[in-house]
């Protein structure tokens, strides 16, 4: 480079300077910032998916942990007098088999067409049992002209589909008069009173034979056995039936065996009234 070259460069720099428009500057600078942010964006999607999966898994585990408690069956069913329950003292009676064996008894009854039933809010003290299922159907007050057969059938249906109402069974027993002495419930709770009302409304006429009455009430424990979900509850049901049938020796032995087999099992007060030694 010599002076002549410097002069030439000076002349060149005297030329009007061209500059890019500001919009072009902004566009290029914005483009320069996008790739710098890309690493975060690259991780954002996988991280979001992982976070959602973890939350979903936690939710599923929580639900699974709570589900067994939420699906606990209703309170154990009371004993019913005059049933055809087998007297075997074996501690592991299969309630399902028992139901199957006794199923024809129910089917012998003429099946009434499905009737519209009335829902009654009857949450008594016992309904505060945390996971007792709501009754699925209630018996509507029968019309006075309703035939006795229909009433009986509906009564059976009530027991079949409404396990919570089974707690009213002792009171119903007392009304039926089949074994009033064994009926333990001195003061039935609200649900039982409800059932009493219902049963009273649909009570069979006095002319009804005792056999029919027995068949009607026998369906209750079978329904109870159907609804019972745990072997302990089924066993207690069986003991309660023995007690109700006056087979106290067998009931005592079965209760002892139950205590030995399940030392930590807490028998609910209502059930204890039915199975306790007298």
């Amino acid at each position, binding site marked *: 480079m010599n002076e002549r070259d410097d002069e030439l460069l000076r*002349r*060149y720099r005297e030329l009007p300077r061209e500059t890019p428009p500001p919009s072009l500057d902004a566009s*290029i*600078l914005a483009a*320069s910032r996008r790739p710098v942010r890309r690493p975060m964006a690259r991780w954002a999607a996988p991280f979001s998916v992982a976070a959602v999966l973890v939350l979903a898994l936690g939710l599923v585990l929580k639900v699974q942990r709570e589900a067994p408690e939420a699906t606990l069956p209703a309170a154990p069913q009371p004993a019913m007098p005059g049933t055809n329950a087998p007297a075997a003292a074996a501690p592991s009676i299969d309630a399902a088999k028992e139901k199957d064996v006794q199923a024809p008894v129910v089917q012998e009854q003429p099946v009434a067409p499905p009737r519209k039933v009335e829902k009654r809010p009857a949450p008594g003290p016992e309904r505060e049992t945390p996971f007792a299922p709501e009754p699925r159907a209630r018996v509507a007050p029968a019309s006075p002209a309703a035939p006795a057969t229909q009433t009986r059938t509906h009564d059976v249906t009530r027991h079949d589909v409404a396990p919570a109402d089974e707690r009213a069974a002792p009171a119903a027993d007392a009304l039926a008069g089949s074994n009033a002495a064994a009926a333990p419930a001195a003061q039935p709770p609200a649900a039982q009173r409800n059932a009493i009302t219902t049963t009273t409304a649909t009570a069979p006429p006095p002319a009804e034979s005792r056999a029919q009455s027995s068949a009607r009430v026998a369906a209750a424990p079978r329904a109870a056995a159907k609804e019972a979900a745990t072997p302990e509850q089924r066993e207690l049901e069986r003991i309660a039936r023995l007690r109700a049938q006056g087979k106290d020796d067998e009931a005592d032995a079965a209760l002892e065996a139950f205590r030995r087999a399940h030392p930590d099992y807490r028998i609910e007060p209502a059930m204890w009234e039915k199975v306790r030694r007298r």
Partner: protein
Amino acid sequence: MSVSDEQLMLAYGAGDAAAFETLYGRHKGPLFGFVVRSVKTRGEAEEIFQDVWMRAIEARERYQPAAKFTTWLYTIAHHRLIDHWRVKGLAVVPLDTGDDDEGPALDPAAGPEADPHEIAVAVQTRDRFAAALAALPLVQREAFLLHAEGGLTVPEIAAATATNEEAAKSRLRYAMKKLREAIEDE
């Protein structure tokens, strides 16, 4: 002490967006001047200018400071201009030009006249200089602009234009000679 261009580019490649803004501020004027005097219209110049910076942005992680940043940047610009000239049907720079090489034919749109001397007579000094510059053969004009705008030396011009140093030196010398003649004829 200011940070070098190479350090800024490395910083940008590592994710420092502010480094690129500094780099852009330093070189946008010279690069735009280089591009706008190498094509026919300002619109084309803006398009090429933006494209050059986009390529630089895309290549940020591959940048290696083996050469000056300006050499690297103007190499990108040179390649982009080659593509542009090819699309326009203009002759591309021959690689083995000697001292007597006048390069390809003049860009018809670069100036109204083919002879820099006639242009210099017709207009004012500054305009004559601009016209003489526009009338230069592509390779000579590019060599001069790389030197005048980018501050590239002869070896750097050779590297940026993918030619040997002798050819680069010859192109630059001929370009300056013609421009000098244009302004000395005042």
